[in-house]
């Protein structure tokens, strides 16, 4: 309860500060609209915002699922085999060094203006944090467990399944929580480059027509969406991983 109250207080302080800046600076509303104006724009355009939110959320969720799945598989492969580490690690790091903004137009060219180019962007952006967090966990299994497994004549795959993967679940949970925050960024970048749907597209459209209040409304909706996704991922992580392990 305290936490909720705290969040509400912080939210109110931010709104008050925002209003104060608007009032004191006297900036025109197409540069910085007031919170009330943004709230009004949100209410007036709620159907539009909901429709576009649905598109973005779909992209994010599919991206999260595919990216997490690929990250999990890659991390297990990397942990399993030294050769996979030699081969895949540089590619993985190289993929992170590439700016996603640069890849967005190519992905749109390859996958079209529809859903899949945005899903691909979300996948690209979350693949590394999930892989890296889970791989770290897989490589840090307490040595005592591995010793015990060795004296029990365990096979490599059994150790992976019954010890290393469960021991690394808290790390995977951290990776997925990060992914829940990053995935919307990927999807929105994709929408900016080429789309006729989604909150990113709506922001770009509103910005182009100097409807800054609508742009802010769409941006705040995206922020709330990210926070909700993070909270859901956090709750799921707590449910899946025993408390003492988190």
């Amino acid at each position, binding site marked *: 309860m305290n936490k909720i109250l705290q969040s509400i207080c912080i939210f109110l302080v931010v709104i008050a500060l925002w209003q104060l800046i608007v009032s004191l600076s006297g900036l025109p509303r197409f540069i910085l609209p007031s919170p009330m104006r943004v709230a009004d724009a949100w209410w007036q355009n709620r159907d539009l915002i909901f429709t576009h939110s649905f598109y973005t959320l779909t992209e994010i969720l599919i991206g999260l699922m595919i990216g997490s799945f690929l990250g999990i598989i890659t991390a297990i492969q990397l942990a399993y085999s030294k050769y996979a580490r030699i081969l895949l690690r540089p590619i993985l790091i190289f993929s992170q060094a590439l700016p996603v903004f640069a890849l967005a137009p190519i992905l749109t060219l390859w996958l079209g203006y529809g859903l899949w180019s945005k899903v691909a962007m979300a996948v690209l952006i979350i693949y590394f944090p999930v892989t890296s967090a889970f791989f770290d966990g897989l490589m840090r299994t307490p040595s*005592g467990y591995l*010793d*015990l497994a060795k*004296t*029990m*004549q365990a096979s490599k795959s059994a150790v992976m399944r019954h010890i290393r993967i469960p021991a690394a679940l808290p790390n995977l949970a951290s990776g997925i929580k990060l992914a829940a925050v990053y995935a919307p960024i990927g999807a929105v970048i994709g929408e900016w480059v080429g789309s006729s749907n989604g909150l990113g597209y709506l922001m770009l459209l509103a910005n182009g027509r100097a409807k800054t209040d609508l742009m802010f409304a769409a941006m705040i909706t995206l922020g709330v969406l990210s926070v909700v996704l993070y909270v859901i991922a956090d709750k799921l992580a707590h449910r899946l*991983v*025993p408390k003492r392990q988190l």
Partner: protein
Amino acid sequence: MIEAPTFIARLSGSAEMQGEILFSPLNLELCQAQWTCLLGASGVGKSTILRLFAGLETHVNFKGKIESNDGLALAPKIAYMAQSDLLLPWANILDNVMIGAKLRGQQLELERANEILERVGLADQSHKKPTQLSGGQRQRAALARTLMEDKDIILLDEPFSALDAKTRSEMQDLAVDLLKNKTVLLVTHDPAEAARLAHTILVMTRDNLTPMPVPDGAIPRFVDDPKTLQAQGHLLKYLRTMS
């Protein structure tokens, strides 16, 4: 005529770590159905000896051989119990006890696991997670897991050292009872534990392995048995002269 006990496993050789001698050539024999207690200063290589028997990574350069009396590989005959209980925190006690079979892809023996849990007094705790148990209960669960392995040779690396005095002595009694007919190598820092449990007491230094006098009587010896207390005192005195 009393038959001399025959060795079931033997380690002979020396070890170096980063070019320095960890221990000089020694010969350590584990005799059938006997408890051998290995004492010595910290860092002298007691746990290394135990890990060598278990076939675990030691980071030392061992020159010598580790053999069993029948010439077969030693590793499949060994069960291991460490100072830390090594219970998997995500699995309940029953699953922890059966982890060996799971790791080998064998059929789970649920009935036997429950029977063993009953013998260690944890029958009513089998569905709890390790974090819900006390230190003593956790070591009982680890002992149950070791028993479940049903191996001839049991390697114990200071398994009771983290427990309070009362629980420790209870665990010692339980371990002797449950590991009857097993060949046990116990690495310990505690002269009282060695005096209570050992058929053979060996003190390890960098240069050699010295056998120490062992009190008469079956194990576990009574904690207040004068001969056991005398042996404990003698052992402690000897350990103090070494440092």
